């Protein structure tokens, strides 16, 4: 049964974002891969780090619903086509936001494997995992309010069942990434900073 999402306070604390910004504080420039859609305020926020950003907008490319049913045979997504990332580039930061909640672990694993070629040792992957019974039916768009606050934008207010990916399960598919930071927030969101360790 579809329930109507009651919007929580507009702005949420984000300790993950805060930790990420602290890491970037002393860098001259950085390369950021945004898997979400473009938002002017976010671009403006990141501009302080003199970045090169790549907007992949996977939200608009993914078939909806992105979470396939369990009896469907796994088909490797065409990440090349979906993301369109230029070859030969690597990024310091990958903003995944809440996308992983909408993918089966097998697909998460496939995505992580694909993204590795765009990582360098120390690349940070910022992801939000829902740990609650229900979650917004569509991938959320995040607006950065400031260095430690996010505003959630849900185009539709419907809710759906949450897969509740467990920390061990997530860590299991994030091979060659270590959990650098994780923050469990009161709104049922766990914010992760995964750090790429490079290939051995």
């Amino acid at each position: 049964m579809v329930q109507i999402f009651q919007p929580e306070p507009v702005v949420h604390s984000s300790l993950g974002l805060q930790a990420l910004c602290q890491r970037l504080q002393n860098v001259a420039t950085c390369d950021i891969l945004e898997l979400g859609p473009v938002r002017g305020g976010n671009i403006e926020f990141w501009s302080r780090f003199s970045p090169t950003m790549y907007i992949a907008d996977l939200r608009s490319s993914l078939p909806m619903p992105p979470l396939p049913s369990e009896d469907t045979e796994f088909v490797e997504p065409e990440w090349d086509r979906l993301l369109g990332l230029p070859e030969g580039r690597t990024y310091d930061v990958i903003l995944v936001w809440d996308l992983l909640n909408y993918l089966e672990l097998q697909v998460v694993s496939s995505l992580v494997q694909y993204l590795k070629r765009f990582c360098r040792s120390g690349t940070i992957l910022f992801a939000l995992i829902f740990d609650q019974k229900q979650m917004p039916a569509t991938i959320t768009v995040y607006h950065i309010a400031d260095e430690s606050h996010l505003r959630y934008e849900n185009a539709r207010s419907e809710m759906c069942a949450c897969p509740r990916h467990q920390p061990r399960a997530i860590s299991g598919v994030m091979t060659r990434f270590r959990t650098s930071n994780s923050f469990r927030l009161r709104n049922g969101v766990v914010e992760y900073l995964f750090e790429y360790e490079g290939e051995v």
Partner: protein
Amino acid sequence: MWKKSESEESHPQPAPAPMPQPAAAPKPPVHQAREPQAVIGATISIKGDLLGEEDLLIEGRLEGKIESRRHSVTIGKNGRIKGDIYAKNITVEGTVEGNLYGEEQMIVRQSGTVRGNIIAPRVALEDGSNFKGSIDMSPKEKTAAAPSPDRPVIAKTT
């Protein structure tokens, strides 16, 4: 092919001065403060490069490079461009497939769609705009330097 925009044509002319001014201290008429803008209308299609030295508004279709490095280029809501754009300021309200090089700033309006890379020191993308590609806002020194694939990592381990 190009025409003056309506806004320019309808700009009120300054009233004639009642008394002749001394030649030593001429003041430019008010209407010269704004540079004229060339317009490519919605029914125009062009295949080929477009080079200019004035502000430009494109409402039509163009396949090719647009270059007006010291002036502004605006792709209007009906504009469809396949090719790179080089200009001082670039505003996109229509659709562009190509790279955008803004000397000063780059704006993608809510109605705008860009598939390509943006290179400009100041970039504004309105919410609702459609964009896929990279944005390079780094200083020119970095942009000009050859990128090193194995440059040091910026993130520090905690």
